[in-house]
């Protein structure tokens, strides 16, 4: 992982109070691995998916303080599509740039690891303020 990416990830470790980044909370489904502090969630747009490396980049932020978080996505991490209300399991390869996701994740020495990923809509179509 590039140094700059590590730095960007570090910016998202601490929970933030507003908007796109949600208050710290437990994941709604069983985590793939036991959570370790710090444990956080992020809601933002997918800016890159690397199926081979099993990572996703999620862009989010507060106002113009825009950040990206790269999440490793182990094979057993539940990825669901909630766009039409009911959760349907999807694969990492079905996520695409511009999808709005909500991800619970934790920190590891190698970076951030996703516990759950939910697709809640797309930027183009919009997502309500409090999905």
């Amino acid at each position, binding site marked *: 992982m590039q140094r700059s990416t590590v730095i960007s990830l570090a910016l998202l470790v*601490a929970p933030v*109070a*507003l*908007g796109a980044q949600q208050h710290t909370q437990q994941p709604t489904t069983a985590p793939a691995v036991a959570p370790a502090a710090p444990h956080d969630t992020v809601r*933002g747009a997918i800016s890159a998916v690397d199926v081979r490396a099993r990572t996703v*980049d999620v862009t989010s*932020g507060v*106002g*113009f303080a825009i950040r990206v978080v790269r999440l490793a996505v182990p094979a057993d991490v539940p990825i669901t599509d909630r766009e039409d209300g009911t959760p349907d399991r999807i694969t990492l390869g079905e996520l695409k740039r511009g999808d709005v996701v909500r991800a619970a994740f934790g920190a590891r020495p190698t970076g951030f690891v996703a516990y759950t990923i939910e697709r809640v809509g797309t930027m183009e179509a919009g997502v309500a303020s409090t999905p």
Partner: protein
Amino acid sequence: MTRGAVVIALLVLAAACRRPQPGDPLPGLSAAERAQFDSGRAVFESTFTAEVGLGPLFNASGCAECHEDPVAGANGDEVEHHAAVFHPERAGATCDVLADKGGPVFQDSVTPALHAALGIDQEPRPPIVTTIAERTTPDIFGFGLLDAVPDSVILSYADPDDKNHDGISGRPNRFFDGRLGRFGRKALVPSLREFNDGAFQIEIGITNPSVPVEGTVAGDSLPTGTDPARDPEIGGRALVLTDMFVRLLAPPPPLKQSKEARRGGEVFGTVGCTGCHVPKLPTGDNPIVALSHKEVAAYTDLLLHDMGPERADICFALATPNEFRTEPLMGLRLATHFMHDGRAKTPEEAIELHAGEATRARDLFKSLPAADQAALLAFLKTL
């Protein structure tokens, strides 16, 4: 009644009848809200130093360094720089707002410690950048009312496919989490609070509970020792108070209109300016009574419009380089420069620089008799 009591009564009456001035709070605040407004103004007018957290990268040492003319919350002559990557020639071209480099705002100043460590005077622009945009400081009067306009109202003006064939096709921008955007020249930011909280970090380098960690130097970490202040550099109360000051700033009340200006207001509609510069927007339910169910004479629809390739600069989320949010015109008479980059020095020049979806309205204005043009300009100078 004594003569002294009469004088006092007259002074109180005069104060009550005083026309609101730029920088005044909204009318009808509770005592507690007014106290928060006053305390928030003090934070807004604070100047930060490196010892208390300024920078190491920054555009200003405090909010009022830019939002200053003629009072705190007004516009300013500072210009800052935003950058992005956009390759329209590539199939499926997407907008890269440089999130992995710390976002599109590239600060133009550094603290002495960062200069000593890296030998830079501003944040370096990465070589991948395709466009650098200039952004002037807008006034923020009445922004609390804009924040209180329901999403549904803004979306009701959207016509992305121009189904009514009026040549105007406003569409919404969205923040990265899908929420409707409304603040910023490209309508990216959904709420005033987020705009304010983010600005502390991105403009002043002041970390806070909403943005608790410093940014980067174009994606690289800050050198050790260049940011000695402990994070977060201001607390949640300072954020709340600053937000309340900004939120409760009243829009400057329009000046009394002459007969010519009133006619100019009609011409403003006739030539089609109101297709984007919607004269009034309603607010919805709001916990602050002074913001709840009001009409704000904003002269904006808070949507994106294509302003033509001549004005194009950066992309920003869903906004293409050509697209800009309709600039609110409330307080226009106080402005000393116009358009997002300040290149227009008069309202006439600003009208001349309108293109894209505004071409028809601009050309109709130019074809008006001189008296009608003068009337429209007289109207604008009352806002």
